[in-house]
């Protein structure tokens, strides 16, 4: 009880715990804990055999945080910026530091634009996006979608119903729009 000074009574003694739980107390001494202390100066421990790494060639102007003094010697090269989303991304990196909300909000907006651009592009390719296979939603049938949720007292069921609407909604809307446009055009002929 916190209203008096003594430690609360232990439910189980160390011996009981040791008997019940393999390895109980093996790392009781902080000396055995590899993350303690947090900082330990030991550059020789990492395997690096350089003071500063060789620089990876920069094959296109790599976007980078304005909080960096220079391009880091090593970086990822997947999916360079492209299209409207690429313009937005480069703008967010160029104009705003990580400290500004605008930096992240523009990057998030660019992600939504990227998804739309990529879906549209895919329809002009040999591999159009397929929302059924790409969402893996058929596993609802083979992996107990119903019984995994119903009668289980899960908190996330309260909002999971929104996900299909959010994911499928834009596709349904786009299909509807396409249908009405095509029909209107056909009528005009």
């Amino acid at each position, binding site marked *: 009880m916190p209203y008096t000074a003594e430690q609360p009574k232990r439910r189980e003694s160390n011996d009981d715990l040791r008997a019940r739980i393999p390895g109980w107390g093996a790392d009781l001494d902080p000396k*055995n804990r590899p993350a303690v202390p947090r900082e330990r100066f030991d550059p020789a421990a990492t395997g690096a055999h350089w003071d500063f790494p060789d620089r990876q060639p920069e094959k296109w102007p790599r976007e980078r945080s304005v909080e960096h003094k220079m391009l880091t010697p090593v970086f990822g090269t*997947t999916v360079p910026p492209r299209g409207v989303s690429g313009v937005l991304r480069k703008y967010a990196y160029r104009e705003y530091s990580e400290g500004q909300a605008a930096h992240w909000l523009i990057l998030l907006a660019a992600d939504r634009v990227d998804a739309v651009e990529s879906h549209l592009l895919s329809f002009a390719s040999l591999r159009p996006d397929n929302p059924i296979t790409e969402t893996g939603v058929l596993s609802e049938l083979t992996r107990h979608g119903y019984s995994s949720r119903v009668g289980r007292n899960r908190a996330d069921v309260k909002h999971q119903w929104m996900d299909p609407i959010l994911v499928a909604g834009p596709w349904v809307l786009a299909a509807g729009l396409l249908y009405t446009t095509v029909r209107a055009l056909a009528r005009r002929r």
Partner: protein
Amino acid sequence: MRAMVYRGPYKVRVDEKDIPPIEHPNDAIIRVTLAAICGSDLHLYHGMMPDTRVGMTFGHEFIGVVEEVGSSVQNLKRGDRVMVPFNIYCGSCYFCARGLYSNCHNVNPNATAVGGIYGYSHTCGGYDGGQSEYVRVPFADVGPALIPEWMDDEDALLCTDALATGYFGAQLGDIHEGDTVAVFGAGPVGLFAAKSAWLMGAGRVLVIDHLDYRLEKARTFAHAETFNFAEYDDIVREMKKTTDYLGADAVIDAVGAEADGNLTQHLTSAKFKLQGGSPVALNWAIDSVRKGGTVSVMGAYGPLFSAVKFGDAMNKGLTLHMNQCPVKRQWPRLFEHIQNGYLKPSDIVTHRIPLEHIAEGYHIFSAKLDNCIKPVIVPSQSA
């Protein structure tokens, strides 16, 4: 090669991609033999992490065989079986020199606040990940390690993130002999954190989640007392009750940005992206810990702000510890624990899914179907 590819929120598929080339003298190319999907991947999958580009390959938990090495690589050669920590790090910058491997300054041009992580958006450096047949591994002399002869592949796989992170999370809880430790979240990270809390000498371990099948695992695998928060009006009050109104000595947040239990928080973060993450579990942790206690945050949050109850943390005089796990620092001691039989990481693997079916793997893990705890991905050539 075949590789998982992100196609927009809730959509992934397997595409043909070029085998990645060596781009730096200390690179290695690894042929992936096993990969996994992590709770962190769900934040990408749900479109919550800024600068997640369509076309990226996810996956930061993987093991494999060295296929090719760059000209300056000394410690690895073709054919070596290796496990690769989820952190990409140089080993020589200010932070690496001090053991902060997850906070390396030389690998992520996109952000100074975050280190490098395989397959984890451009905010974490723009590297393709290991849910694929091949992957580029930078700083091959620093990150990867040979898989010990005696170690099972799935155990090695889980050492690359989930196990190391849970073990790290328990250490950041600053646990003393006999302490009461509460762990929010019974996913892979929470289960391993609960199990590790005993190694640090905890006297009681409480695990909180809303998925009964995971709480069952917390009882059997992690010997914990469990609480389903959906069964209580107010889980914080229950935490106070069970600790005789003192509060837990240490609390670990193993939930992160997509915490359930508060619809407003869910809507403003997961749906409308106005927050870097829903801090429901973090707030519960802050309110459940005793005054002067420690909160260890393993759950990941996005770079945008979150509505955290900072006043309570301040008034209670809490210590908050947190970081992405510096994985390789945990390995030598973890290997001893595995060899001694104290930890059996692969006990939590529930699904083994061929790479070609990864879209279903993501859906099952994200929607928590089929009692899924940890899905492992098997590239076709290793099946």
